[in-house]
């Protein structure tokens, strides 16, 4: 009995010290994920198309514009900041976090459509364009390359060249096939169980976006696991993962089954299409299948890199000269 009493007393004492810590509110902005441009006016932003986007530019505004399109949907451009280097090679480099992603403003789930993402991109180009003759190039990674292609398919005359890095696909079935392969983990793996185990600790309603974003950030770390087929060198830098936009655009894709290849035959400008040596879910066969939608494509493998080939030293050093050479010959 004395022993039981001692154990209970020790537990109560331990709980007392634990309980004296300051309580934090899980709904408080800036506690678990960074504040967005709407919540922190010190962040660089632009207001376009009825939203506020976290955005930055590098280089001479009169130079040809290179718009960097990040992946996800729901990631941010922090992992693509190596692309600032293009500014010193005569390009006006434009970065922006897509609507609902990174440090850009959040919206309700029903706002997000493929069309509004295209409209945002048009608005970003218009905002930064300094002359009607200024050339516009895209550099899109993963989902960003899909967005670039959806845009080219819709407005082929508006884009003067594109570098596309491992887009999942331009027709929905290709996207599903690729995502299925890249998200496939062994049943007993640490990565899969880390993703599923979290659900008993944190749940968030649709209007508790900071909680959903935090949880999505933890789950997105599966991509950097050594158990992942993506072949990345390690963790990627990030600001905030946008959970709702990711969910909304996947649901929209599943519902609408988009085909962004219907008009690509009219786009005769050469496209640089790159894929990585180490991404086991991608590979030459998928790269050939996806890139074949473009009539004029240069298909290049980036050695020594995985899916996030633009973010790590070896991938970047192998990619950069190829990309520069492509842009200079357009």
């Amino acid at each position, binding site marked *: 009995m004395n022993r039981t009493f001692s154990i209970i007393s020790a537990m109560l004492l331990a709980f007392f010290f634990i309980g004296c810590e300051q309580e934090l509110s899980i709904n408080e902005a800036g506690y678990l994920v960074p504040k967005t441009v709407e919540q922190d006016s010190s962040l660089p932003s632009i207001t376009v198309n009825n939203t506020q986007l976290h955005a930055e530019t590098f280089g001479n505004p009169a130079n040809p514009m290179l718009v960097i399109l990040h992946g996800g949907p729901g990631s941010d451009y922090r992992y693509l900041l190596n692309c600032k280097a293009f500014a010193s090679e005569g390009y006006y480099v434009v970065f922006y976090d897509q609507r609902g992603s990174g440090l850009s403003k959040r919206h309700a789930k029903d706002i997000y459509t493929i069309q509004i993402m295209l409209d945002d991109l048009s608005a970003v180009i218009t905002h930064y364009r300094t002359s009607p003759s200024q050339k516009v190039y895209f550099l899109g990674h993963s989902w960003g390359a899909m967005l670039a292609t959806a845009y080219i398919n819709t407005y082929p005359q508006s884009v003067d060249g594109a570098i596309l890095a491992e887009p999942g696909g331009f027709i929905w079935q290709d996207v599903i096939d690729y995502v299925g392969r890249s998200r496939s983990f062994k049943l007993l793996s*640490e990565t899969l169980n880390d993703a599923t185990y979290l659900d008993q600790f944190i749940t968030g*309603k649709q209007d508790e976006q900071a909680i959903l974003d935090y949880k999505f950030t933890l789950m997105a770390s599966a991509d950097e696991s050594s158990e992942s087929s993506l072949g990345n060198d390690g963790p990627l830098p990030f600001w905030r993962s946008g959970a709702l936009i990711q969910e909304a655009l996947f649901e929209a894709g599943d519902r609408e089954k988009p085909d962004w290849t219907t008009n690509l035959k009219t786009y005769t400008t050469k496209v640089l299409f790159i894929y990585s040596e180490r991404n086991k879910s991608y590979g030459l066969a998928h790269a050939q299948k996806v890139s074949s939608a473009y009539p004029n494509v240069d298909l290049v493998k980036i050695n020594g890199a995985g899916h996030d080939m633009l973010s790590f030293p070896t991938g970047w050093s192998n990619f950069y000269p190829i990309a520069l050479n492509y842009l200079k010959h357009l």
Partner: protein
Amino acid sequence: MRILKLILTLSLLSIYNSSAQTLNWASLKKEQRHLANLNIGLDYGVTAGIVYSYHLKTALPMAIGLEYSMPSGKKIGDDFKTKLGGQIRWFRFSDFNFSTRIQGVFRRFDSNYVTLTNFGTDVSGTLGYYKPKWFLAGEAGFDKAIVTHFKHSDLMSDNFTAKNGWYMPATGGNFYYGLQTGFSWQSHDIILKVGKVINQDFRTEPLLPFYVQIGYTLKMK
């Protein structure tokens, strides 16, 4: 101090309430006091667990117990769940039995970015048809993560300095409902539980929206 009160309340609930392992009330004999259970299944991941329960000498059949389970993965023991509590059979009508269960939950989640330590509670009710050799029952319950401590790693700090500490209000909660069945012989039970899990908003589902448990129980005097 609200955290302190909550943790104390949960601890007392755990200590003074009665086990959580799935029982065949019709086959459980008065003299069988010690119940040991091994189980595997899907419970927010592929899990393996062990349960010890003590069958109390009370007017209403009651058992208190302690559970420990952990998910599979390379790092064994970095994530786990313990439950302390019990169950009581409130009434019996013919071969139908109704019981409730309440447990305090202490669990841990560890990833490259954060270590979460949570105190919560799990309450459920079970109504079923129990025979000495088999049973079939329906269960429904709610698993609430009431207060959670967040301790972020340097890797997270490289990206964003998220605040460490105890987070309130409740950080999570899921409802679950399903079926239990089992076969009993002598002092042995084989148990199967299957069910569905849904977020407390009744709209979203966890990544693994169902649970399955297969278990073996040995009942000893």
